[in-house]
């Protein structure tokens, strides 16, 4: 075992990481998400804010409550599956393969956990599409300040992302050997990671300079959303590079037994960054929902 650790110690770390993954993805963040949606539905009902719900039917509130309950149950079910897998591992005396490869199970379980969020993302995309289709406002506003990348994320973070990417590239190619022909896997790995970073850069540029997803959204709220997305993608880029560096190092120094733990921690990092920054920066409580009110409606709080 690596670092002269006992098998039990390695397994404790493994179970702790896996439990953390179950808790974060199938309990904590689903709960935060449900609370966020409930806050919007309870405080900004269809009757007073019809523009927010372009496809709302007659029983919208009841339907949404049912969907949120289903979302909670599905996540609970996935959490139970995870706990059963852990119990099965404990019962059968499972030990991760010292040569690595068991991280594939962690990834499969992560993808299972991600399914409810993927469905939510598809629904969100449809909601934005419906908002744009319903947008008939003649009055349009814009801020006269130019937007730049560093208005939304610190130059240090961007620099760190570039340095981490460069460090991974140099380290990876050094391990693979500069003086010998590279295998296909090297080109794929370099191409995919570079492509991923370029995709992130494109998405950031699209949000900073492109059209708003929600045409009703107030300028200051849109700025908060862009800030959150920019930070998430820059921090994710740092995470990807660090994860790749650690996995290459694990292979290099015979630490493959930690591959499942590293994979689980990386997935949790992505989710923590993704949800944490979005929920922390783009707080729904701070958003201006008056933009969704029907023209001529009075403010109940006034």
């Amino acid at each position: 075992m690596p670092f002269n650790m006992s098998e039990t110690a390695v397994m404790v770390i493994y179970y702790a990481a896996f439990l953390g993954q179950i808790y974060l993805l199938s309990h904590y963040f689903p709960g935060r998400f449900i609370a966020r949606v409930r806050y919007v539905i309870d405080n900004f009902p269809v009757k007073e804010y019809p523009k927010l719900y372009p496809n709302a039917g007659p029983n919208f509130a009841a339907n949404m409550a049912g969907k949120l309950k289903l979302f909670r149950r599905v996540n609970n079910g996935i959490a139970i599956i995870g706990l059963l897998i852990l119990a099965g591992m404990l019962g059968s005396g499972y030990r991760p393969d010292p040569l690595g490869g068991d991280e594939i199970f962690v990834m499969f379980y992560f993808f299972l956990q991600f399914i409810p969020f993927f469905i939510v993302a598809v629904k969100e995309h449809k909601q934005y599409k419906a908002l744009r289709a319903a947008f008939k406002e003649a009055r349009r506003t814009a801020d006269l300040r130019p937007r730049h990348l560093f208005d939304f994320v610190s130059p240090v973070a961007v620099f760190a992302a570039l340095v981490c990417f460069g460090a991974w590239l140099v380290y990876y190619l050094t391990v693979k050997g500069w003086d010998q022909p590279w295998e296909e896997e090297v080109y794929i790995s370099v191409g995919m990671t570079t492509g991923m970073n370029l995709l992130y850069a494109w998405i950031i540029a699209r949000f900073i300079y492109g059209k708003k997803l929600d045409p009703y959204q107030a300028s200051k709220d849109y700025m908060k959303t862009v800030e959150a997305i920019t930070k998430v993608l820059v921090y994710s880029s740092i995470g990807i590079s660090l994860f790749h560096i650690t996995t290459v190092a694990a292979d290099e120094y015979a630490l493959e037994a930690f591959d499942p733990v590293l994979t689980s921690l990386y997935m949790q990092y992505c989710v923590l960054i993704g949800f944490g920054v979005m929920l922390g920066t783009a707080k729904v409580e701070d958003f201006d929902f008056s933009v969704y009110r029907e023209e001529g409606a009075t403010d109940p709080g006034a």
Partner: protein
Amino acid sequence: MEIVIDIDAEEPLFAQLMAEIKRAVSAGGINPGDALPSIRQLANDLNLNNKTVAKAYQLLERDKVIITKGYRGTFVHPDARKNMDFDLNAWVAGQINQTINACREKGATDSEIRIAFANIMQNKPTAGE
């Protein structure tokens, strides 16, 4: 500083945009030397065609309210507030009015003035050439 345009208004969109930028400059919302958003950013934010914003910027640059510095972007002209006092449209109307009055004094009919004006605008040879 936020600007507002109304796509249902009778005034052309580029003219509304020019007026809003001038209003922002005179109200102190943006100051001489301040950077302005790119054509693409403003067009996307207002959900307008890039050409509409480009036309407004072009006319504002002509009026020396804004200045374009190549790849660095577009800025409020250092003398924007002073230059905004000069209304080019009013000046053009005044000049043409003077010319038309002079023609009428010489006995030219409105029809003759209109034909001469159209020919000059279309670079066609006139009777005196």
